[in-house]
């Protein structure tokens, strides 16, 4: 099955419906959680994950209402993770607004994240056993990814395989879930579903590697530069460069207690000198290729083009 269901909404209408669904779900939450979720939903999120889910579903026939509800579930998982990540990282802003914990305090923000995860659970259970099972597995992997992410802070010897495991658990797992749920909803055959899931996982890894590169270079993408380095969260370019840091200058600078974003230009040039950015770009390209190779297994046509476009829109913007 490669035809799009006639009832499926065009992409913009779809994201609007997902947003509405999120707001409707938020109505069931008590204050101050409701307000926090509403602020996040109203912020400049691109709803990448629901769009990915819908694009995968378009390989078959999906019920449009269920698709909207599933889109809201995957976005809500993302929002819940953001709430908790911001508590851990002490982030000051999120989506252009003050981060939740700065507005309502650490404990309320943490409870808000918990309330969102709980809402994910009831909504997923409503959508069926298969959805509940897949969602709970992913949320468990995300929680493990969160652990991996914190414990590697300031680790200048963090090995690349461990980095990839982290990226797969923290970021790619949710992309993978979007494709899995989309494929299941579109009633794709096992071959197509398998290819879509592999596409999602590889796309997620690519996305995160490029996101890590973004922490180093100001390029107007709107993300504050150097935050991750200040927090001791070293991404692919830095980890590659550290492996070539025989004199230890980069490691010493990165572990300096007085490190600030003023040190970033020097970090950038040390990483550049040690070939970190090139190596990370190659790694990203490898994973991007894997994602595209998975797409090659899918029938040519509208749905596949839609995924190619989605991936293209997601990735180059982040280089």
């Amino acid at each position, binding site marked *: 099955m490669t035809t799009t269901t006639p009832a499926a909404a065009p992409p913009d209408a779809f994201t609007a419906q997902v947003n509405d669904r999120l707001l409707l779900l938020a109505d069931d*939450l*008590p*204050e*101050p*959680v409701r307000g926090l979720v509403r602020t996040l939903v109203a912020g400049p999120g691109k709803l990448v994950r629901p769009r990915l889910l819908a694009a995968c579903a378009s390989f078959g026939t999906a019920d449009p209402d269920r698709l909207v509800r599933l889109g809201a579930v995957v976005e809500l998982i993302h929002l819940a993770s953001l709430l*908790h990540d911001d*508590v*851990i990282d*002490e982030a000051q802003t999120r989506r252009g607004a003050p981060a939740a914990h700065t507005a309502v305090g*650490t*404990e*309320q923000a*943490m*409870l*808000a*994240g*918990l*309330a969102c*995860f*709980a*809402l*994910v*659970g*009831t909504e*997923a*259970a*409503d959508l069926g*056993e298969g959805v*509940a*099972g897949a*969602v*709970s*597995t992913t*949320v*468990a992997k*995300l*929680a*493990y990814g*969160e*652990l*991996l992410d*914190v*414990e*590697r*802070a*300031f*680790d*200048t*010897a963090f090995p690349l395989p*461990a980095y990839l495991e982290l990226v797969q658990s923290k970021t790619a797992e949710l992309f993978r879930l979007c494709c899995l749920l989309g494929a299941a909803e579109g009633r794709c055959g096992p071959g197509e579903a398998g290819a879509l899931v592999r596409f999602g996982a590889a796309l997620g890894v690519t996305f995160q590697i490029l996101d890590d590169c973004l922490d180093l270079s100001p390029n107007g993408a709107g993300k504050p530069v150097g935050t991750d380095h*200040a*927090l*001791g969260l070293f991404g692919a370019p830095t980890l590659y460069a550290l492996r070539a840091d025989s004199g230890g200058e980069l490691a010493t600078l990165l*572990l300096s*207690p*007085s*490190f600030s974003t003023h040190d970033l230009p020097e970090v950038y040039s040390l990483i550049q000198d040690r070939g970190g950015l090139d190596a990370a770009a190659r790694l990203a390209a490898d994973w991007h290729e894997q994602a595209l190779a998975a797409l090659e297994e899918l029938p040519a046509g509208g749905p596949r083009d839609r995924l190619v476009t989605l991936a293209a829109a997601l990735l180059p913007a982040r280089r």
Partner: protein
Amino acid sequence: MTAHLAADVLIVGAGPAGAITAAELARHGLRAVLAGEDDGKADHDLVLSGAALHGLASLGALEEVDARVIDNVELRLGQGGGHVLPETVNAVCGRRHLVDGLRRIAAAAGATRLPGLVTDPVRRDGVWHASTGGTTVSARHLVVATGAPSAGTPHATGLLCARPYSGVGLITSIVLALPAPRTIDPAERPTCVWAVPGAQPGTCTIGASRLGPADPDELLETALTVLAEEDPRFAGALPAGPAVTGVLNSGFAPEHSVHDGRLLVGDAAGLVNPFTGEGLSYAVQSALLAARAIADHPDDPGAAGRTYTRRLSATFVGYFETATHAARRYHLAWRVLVATAGDERPVSAKVRRAVLMPEGFSGLTAADLMPLPAPDVALLGPFLLACDEVAVSTVRKEWPFIARLLIAGEQAPHQRLRPAVPFFAALLAGGRPPDATSATLAAAIELATLGALAFLGPMPPRAAPGRRVDWAVASTVLAGDFLLAQASRLVAASAPEVSWSFADWLGELAALRSARIDPAGRSRAGEVFAALLEFPSRIGAQLGGASPETIRALRDFGNHSGHAFLHAEEVLAVRGERTRLDVALPGMLSGRLSAIPDALPGITGDLLAGDPDARSKALDLAVTACHDAHRAALTALEDVTHPVSARMLRSFVATVCAPCAW
């Protein structure tokens, strides 16, 4: 002419673990040979924890080893003064005294002692052969108690040192110190330090351990520096004997406890705490488990090995069961312990105890045991064992330090206050016998309850600004997310029909706590606790097929029990006793856990401490509220007709309310 000795069990290694194995085997009527050299090691004192004391008492060995009881453990985590760990009973004795005493007990029980170097045992046709001195020994079973191997798993191997000192003013306490990290670099490894008072006034033994390569002299020097810092009792310490060094092996994993037919016990199995260097309690317990496994299968060494592995797995969680991430998780645990040193929140206190102490208390509880008739224990015990097995296996690989919260070599875990008990009793109320799926669901409920404690307790204060991870806050979020997510996954996999209710319960808990901490909110303090116990009772009743009236009765019972639990906590806290959640009065009040400020507005821990009238008023309030809740729970139980279910639940709530018994 060599003599030959045919035995049932050959035990190689005649230290504490070997001697206990031999003694216990002989007590079971098996012919045990205890072989191995007398170590020429210099003597020093060591700690006998509560778990070790319990094991030694079961052999009648306490008098024989001449142990001196020490009531206090001073815990010094990171900078700042130490604090005393409540309700820990330890003893101290000389290592030589201990070993000699245990060997005498083994001999008195009938074990044969063969001193001297033992040849490497070889197995032919299912029988082990070895020789020592002029004697050859053959035996069907082989137990290895030779201490830590020098070439162990690299990530779990380090150095242990101990040395006697004089000129020290340590009399009534054992000191355990874990210094603060000096850098933010996760590659840094802690030096763990302990000191125990000696038999002669003014003497003590100081010990230190460290993972990775280390120099013994430097290690002991660091230990003394750490102790003498801010503690004048150690200022004049002078060495009073030679130092003893050994290999630290913390690489325990149940699946490696039987190696090629040999049962490894104690240090040989890697059963040593990497934070304290403590291994004696594990040596005692693993020796008893090995001996009993062999006694259960005297003619089948394979079955004995499998039984031993299974029992170890149900009793201990290692610190480095998987090599991947072990070093990073160890660094995480160290930093969290130090960052939460002054933190009296339930989860911090429980983690501290579970990670540092050989015996912990699982779940919600302290030391209270439910009195239950033997047939009820026989019914409940296997279910809770299965529940623990699922819960532990769910988290032990990924996060061993959390798994230690679930099992910790404790006694009578099936008689503890834990949410799985009302869940089981509620299942029973419908008349349908609980099955394996229910044990998985019980595990999910217990994991979720632990996770909820992370989210529903007061939050730790933010760490001072600086370039660092805020370990206290971060670990709270991580542990909560991890446990709740694992619990939800178990539910979806084992009882999908409960997924919705389970998630709805988590949402309810979040909402109740959120309303409770909202200054404008109007949530009663006990409601969070009521919801914590209402869910297991309700879901158990539903799954067990109970009638609507019984389900309603059990919901009410759960609710009232939760309120009773909180008020009993208040009673303990106001009296200054240890609470089940390990949270003291100031923490209960400032964290908005307690209902006392609702009735006595403006009350604080300081006010209560300084004002006997206010104290007795608060106590009266809490006792009355606890009695009311207890009575209401009992009234609800009148509609539960299943006699065993009702009896278990009565015992459960009576134990909850025991601190305010009327």
